């Protein structure tokens, strides 16, 4: 499966994402933000980092990059798109996902492992997990506080579009387990079609025991098994 890893000026998790895709047998290619054309790819990944230094607002400038003119129709046509951290912020800025990511409620950058609960598995991005399974995944962000109006949150809940939630050691979405103040302890959501996932935690950093966790692998293998095999 051919996977585009889009690199914006200031992206810094592009390499990690590339390696994660490779590890699960995918065929990644770096696509510079000024390039055009995504038709040859089976999936598009937007990596973490600080595109354009997060100046103005995280993701606000990157979403106007030339490549985004191709990412939007790719997503609207049902193509799988995964945005992690800054990638999630860009997807919200681009209108592919609802809501916004604002400054962490603690007003500091937050970098540590969190525990995520997998809320549903009948989705392209989590089919290799079991429902209710908890994952240990690192976060590293200053603006990861997910906010949306009440109506949107209601829709996300009723349509089952919240895929990952921050939970405590007992598996409960408590305030103590919430690292940034996100509404409903939201860590990752999809669009209505289920083909676009945005999440703040970094599954690409949880691929090896040596580095502390292998719980991120399932996300990438889920994606792989849902997509056409390499030709």
């Amino acid at each position, binding site marked *: 499966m051919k996977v585009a890893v889009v690199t914006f000026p200031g992206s810094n998790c592009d*390499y990690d994402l590339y390696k994660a895709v490779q590890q699960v047998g995918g065929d990644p290619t770096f696509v510079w933000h000024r390039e055009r054309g995504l038709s040859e790819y089976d999936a598009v990944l937007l990596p973490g980092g600080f595109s354009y*230094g997060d100046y103005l607002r995280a993701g606000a400038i990157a979403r106007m990059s030339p490549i985004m003119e191709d990412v939007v129709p790719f997503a609207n046509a049902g193509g799988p798109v995964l945005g992690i951290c800054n990638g999630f912020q860009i997807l919200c800025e681009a209108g592919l996902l609802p809501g916004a990511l604002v400054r962490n409620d603690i007003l*500091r950058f937050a970098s540590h492992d969190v525990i995520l609960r997998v809320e549903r598995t009948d989705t392209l991005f989590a089919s290799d997990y079991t429902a209710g399974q908890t994952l240990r995944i690192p976060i590293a962000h200053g603006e990861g506080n997910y906010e949306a109006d009440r109506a949107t949150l209601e829709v996300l809940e009723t349509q089952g579009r919240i895929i990952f939630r921050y939970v405590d050691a007992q598996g409960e979405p408590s305030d103590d387990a919430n690292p940034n103040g996100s509404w409903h302890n939201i860590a990752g959501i999809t669009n209505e079609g289920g083909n676009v996932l945005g999440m703040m935690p970094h599954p690409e950093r949880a691929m090896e025991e040596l580095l502390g966790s292998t719980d991120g692998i399932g996300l990438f293998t889920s994606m792989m098994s849902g997509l056409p095999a390499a030709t």
Partner: protein
Amino acid sequence: MSQADGNAPATSVPPRDGDPEITAEVVADHGLSESEYEKVLAIMGRTPTFTELGVFSAMWSEHCGYKNSKRLLSTLPTKAPWVIQGPGENAGVIDVGDGYALAFKIESHNHPSAVEPYQGAATGVGGILRDIFTMGARPVAVLDSLRFGDLDSGRVRYLFSGVVSGVGDYGNCIGVPNIGGEVAFDRGYEGNPIVNAMCLGLMKHDELITASASGTGSPIMAVGARTGRDGIHGATFASEELSEDSDESSRPQVQVGDPFTEKLLLEASLELISSGAISGIQDMGAAGITSSASEMAGRGGSGIEMEMTDVPIREVGMTPYEILLSESQERMLVVAHVGQEAEVHRILEKWELEAAVIGRVTDDGMFRVMENGKVVADIPALPLTDGCPTYEREGVESAEIKALREMDLSEHLIPGGDLSKSFLLLIGSPNVASKQWIYHQYDTTVRTATAVRPGGDSGVIRIRGTNRAVAATTDCNGRFVYLEPRTGAMAAVAEAARNLVCVGATPTAITNNLNFGNPLKAHIYYQLREAVQGMSEACSAFETPVTGGNVSLFNETDGQAIYPTPVIGMVGVIDDVSKIMRQPFQKAGDDIVLLGVNTGEIGGSEYLYVTADLVAGVPPSVDLDGERMLQRAVLKMIDQEVLNSAHDCSEGGLASALAECALGNGEEPFGLEASLDEDLRPVVSLFGESHGRIIASCDPAKTDEVLRIAGIHAVPAKRLGTVCEAESGFSLNVRDGVVSCSMTDIARAYFDAIPNIMNTSSDSGA
């Protein structure tokens, strides 16, 4: 000496319109002494222009010229078979095996951080990153070594939180993980925080590039950000004492960082180096274009000619003086191969950065600067870089400090108080307590290579595609150095080596950051001389040569000097990542073993500071042979896979170290039951900070083997007790005393200490 020596400056350079006349006062304002100015006159053969004076002032500042430290530094060991690049380049480089080389260096940004903590610290990180990638290495890790006054001061909290955000935001944005460092709080740093940042970069051996200008006619290009008026004379500022007025009046000398531009510059520089289009590259750091150009010319034995109106500037009306001395951030000086200008432009354009040809390499050995074709500075390059006067000064120990060292401490060591209470107080002291509040603001996992994150004895970065890893740590206990500089500096090297050994790394080399007061004072020069001597002895004993570093003198506010603080940044190599050792206990039922022995000194300890508000007494002695055998023994145990954890004993003594092993990161704590029968007073046994001790844990079936390996190496070792479930609590018996606490109380004291202080009040610089 190069053939260029014969060249003389233009005999007459007419003064530029608007430049001040050169008077004794102007010379003094530039920080040059009378004798130094005479040397300038001798080199120039005439009165220098204002621009030339500015250039000399910057290059002959302590920051660039090392005039008060060079002679001492020349006594440090710098060679080993694995050293590829020793002192004198942007960074040291060592071989780490499998064709990989590690570039690493530490640098200070103390003065800027005292004035503007956020930007001062951020640009400190930016500068050290550039030193690494200009060697051709990709930065893979950052460490920060910080010191502040006590946190009960609002201003100190403001400095502390500003520095931590600055260090974090810059590294986070670039995407380089922070893997460790240290922080200390003591009134000795009240007015002058210490902000040292260390960076590690990896490269293949053939990717190494150096910063020298060679090839007559080669174009010199300014790359990256434009030049503005920020940071003019920062190098000279960094070489003066601070005063009450420094806050406001010095702000213009502090630079502003732009990590986004730096990230682009990093990628562009590495691409430039691999393209083969350039022959040299150097950061425009301290003293900006002046130092980068003259140092590259000096190293290449060549000359340089630059036209100031070709330098991209961000403000109108900048004079050559301002352009030459600006310390605007995120700029590089590049020497391209003739005819490769277009390739340089192509790469820079891809990364949306600017590049401009601003001059060329010459063969006349002169550092020549033009403005609209008219010469405004014409200085022989070699005397400018190598001719900086160096001094050996008189050093005498301060009688006041000697008295502190010889103070009778016995009244403070009487048991009687509740040892458990003292223990909780101690591990809740910010110096011992968890530093999670700090490193949770740093991205520690980006680049997916961090095998040991901050909070362990050393940070560890694996080398992808190999079975190897590199480890790094920074260490120095300023109180020990203050009380006895030579022993204290040895202790810093020894502790760094122990910290590396505790993760299973063989100590390989060091970079140092000498943070001291004003060396013109005899007692400060004494500290500097003694500390360098102690460092030299320890580095020789451990075969960890010095590959470079940084000197930060004049760390004084209103005449009050900081503790002498020679920070050691040490790196080590791990051959097999599967054997990486960690600090927390792993399993209830494991045996706890103490390797090494308490030598009974409690001078300079955190216990005395916390309970008696004292920095006094004889600091713990250092037995270099014993340390070396301890290192060997522990590395052998780790290689034989008989240990389950290892942790160095330092601030807070044995009791605190045991608590840290039991707590881990707080998620899965253990308890312990241990006793130690030493012929020492209880507080000395529990809280004394003797060096040369490591706490290990192992499966009880392996304990005999652990003791046997210790025995072979003549390392004293004994079983202290057993790791228990957390519910069993923490019980540590010593002769005539016991510490007995619940793990919940210990965790609360340890993890909540700094957050409780920092989250309760808002602080400003006022």
